[in-house]
């Protein structure tokens, strides 16, 4: 009979990736953490601009920088 239970190793790896992402997000300066958190929660640019009271182009600029910083932070071994 085939084992339909989720692979524990894959689950663990996924959990570790999630934890690394959360740590990296928390390590961002507030200005960038705000936009990244809203983006990860599924918001669109116009919604983020409305929530944060900034223009959509400003959202784009912050996100671009934030994603760059996030990549760097996720590469740093903890």
């Amino acid at each position, binding site marked *: 009979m085939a084992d339909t239970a989720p692979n524990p190793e894959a689950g663990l790896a*996924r959990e570790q990736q*999630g934890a690394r*992402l*959360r740590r990296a*997000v928390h390590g961002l300066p507030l200005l960038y953490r705000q936009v990244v958190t809203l983006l990860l*929660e*599924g918001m669109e640019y116009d919604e983020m601009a409305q929530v944060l009271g900034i223009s959509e182009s400003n959202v784009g600029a912050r996100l671009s920088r934030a994603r760059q910083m996030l990549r760097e932070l996720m590469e740093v071994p903890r």
Partner: protein
Amino acid sequence: MKPDLELEAWRDQWQADTQVPADLRRKVARESRNLRLLLGLEVLVTLVMGGGSTLWAAIEPRTEMVVLAAAVWLFLGAAWTFAAISRRGIWSPAAVSTAEFLDLSIRRCRKKLLSAAFGAGLYFVETAFCLTYPCRPSSSP
């Protein structure tokens, strides 16, 4: 449009995490307690004001007193109707996730703003009624 695979992967990882931050969980729990407390106070006010005016009208069955009791119940009814409508869907989160807890907290803030506006309006109407209603206690001979 090219799919943003990196973002999709990050979103999956982020949204797969069902752990709600402790401070957000505490805030929502505190708001829930306050909501229950407010409900208890409203029941008390209803009993005191509604019951009191009805009792007064029963003891002193003049037309003015009966109208006053009816007006009190009308105002209470308006307040309860508004409360029932505005509190729909703000008692508990739809799911145990950060997004849902955050959404609930935002919904509660919006309802509070709406309640403040309604409360001010009702207060104005009640004050106008009390100042203009020609109800005076019966004068002793």
